């Protein structure tokens, strides 16, 4: 179909903005090789201001709206939204799988795109997982990681929360180069964004105990969110973390 033929052209056209971005990344990631449990956060003060803003937004808007969403939309309804949002991000996933040379991931995600479109009512149900083809979720941040770009400094983004310099550039590309929004005509192109926002509300609701505990019960919610994000992101990307003090044979009390 046309979607597929246009998809195949996508990486080539995407390559030009990516070169520009490459220059940008080379600039921001040059002075850090963060492969350890270390945290590199030279703009902590500015990040903390964004964190306060995010906390306020969460308290006043995001948390109450997500609680309303979780209360009024039953679990099955939220699952449909989540499946659909995942489905719409498959084209972007496949582009990134290919850019990373991950042909197996590209294969699984392509299978999911076709199989769930045909047998999952356009992607609202996920029969692919039932036949053991799970989603290989990825993003431009991971592509940059595969290409050897370091994560750079820690960044907390307004509304979106914890990130790194590399992943911030990745996120911008995730938004601007998403095949679904690039290829679809005007009102329909926002369907992916809408599904994503709803999916995020659902996640905020499902993980509310954990998120509330990090944001509102930690001694320092900024530092806690930063630590959790970096640990989890490095795990997702398969970064080997060298934790220097992880020697259970060393007495932490110095005995």
């Amino acid at each position: 179909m046309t979607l597929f033929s246009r998809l195949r052209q996508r990486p080539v056209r995407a390559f030009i903005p990516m070169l520009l971005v490459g220059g940008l990344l080379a600039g921001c990631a040059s002075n850090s090789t963060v492969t350890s449990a270390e945290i590199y956060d030279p703009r902590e003060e500015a990040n903390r201001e964004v964190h306060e803003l995010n906390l306020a937004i969460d308290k006043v808007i995001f948390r109450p709206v997500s609680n309303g969403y979780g209360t009024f939309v039953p679990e099955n309804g939220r699952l449909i939204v989540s499946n659909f949002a995942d489905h719409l991000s498959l084209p972007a996933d496949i582009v990134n799988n290919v850019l990373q040379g991950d042909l197996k991931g590209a294969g699984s995600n392509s299978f999911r795109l076709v199989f769930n479109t045909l047998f999952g009512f356009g992607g609202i149900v996920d029969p692919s997982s039932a036949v053991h083809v799970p989603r290989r979720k990825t993003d431009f941040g991971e592509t940059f990681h595969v290409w050897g770009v370091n994560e750079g400094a820690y960044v907390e983004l307004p509304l979106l929360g914890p990130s790194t310099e590399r992943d911030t550039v990745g996120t911008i590309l995730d938004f601007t180069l998403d095949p679904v929004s690039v290829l679809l005509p005007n009102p329909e192109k926002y369907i992916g964004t809408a599904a994503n926002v709803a999916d995020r509300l659902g996640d905020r609701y499902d993980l509310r105990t954990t998120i509330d505990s990090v944001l509102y019960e930690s001694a320092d919610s900024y530092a806690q969110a930063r630590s959790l994000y970096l640990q989890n992101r490095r795990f997702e990307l398969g970064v080997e973390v060298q934790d220097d003090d992880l020697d259970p044979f060393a007495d932490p009390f110095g005995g």
Partner: protein
Amino acid sequence: MKRRDFLALSSASAAVSLLPMQASALSSAEAEVLVNSVVADINKVISSGKSLNGMISDFEKIFKRYGDVSFIAGSALGPDARRLSGGQQNSYVSAFTGYISRKYGKRFNEFAGGRIEVNGTKQVKNYYEVNSTAFLPGQSPFAVNFLVSNRTGKNLFFDMVIEGISLRLSEKSEIGAMLDKNRGDLNKLISALKTSG
């Protein structure tokens, strides 16, 4: 089952006492035995349907029995742990243990209807990493790794890592923040821990 675990554990500690500095005395099979016991006990608590406080106190027992609480507490505090006097050290470790048990024990009801399956073990430097997967209803399965060592002469886990997030490292950031809030006063940190979690 219990008895076999006990035998495995005691033969491991016998081996350790013969070779006190050899981490290799702990085999991957023994590390897995430990984690299987932890998982069995945790699954029992999850399915017990006890009250929140009952679950928290059960979790504290599991944590104390199978966990290297002293190492976890000490390394969460970092270099400041060296400033603790002998008496302070004991009260810090016990305050930390209570804090962890409340903080994580009160989340046990979220695991209702779930299970943890042990997949395998690999040796990393002088400890073992036991890989398992948690299956919770309505959620995608996620990775839970237990890090096990025999530092104390007993096989104990000294960290639990969920999807890359280490309990020990996360608490290091949290305990550090608490200490800062209390202006570096270790006694105040200890009393803060007694009411947190």
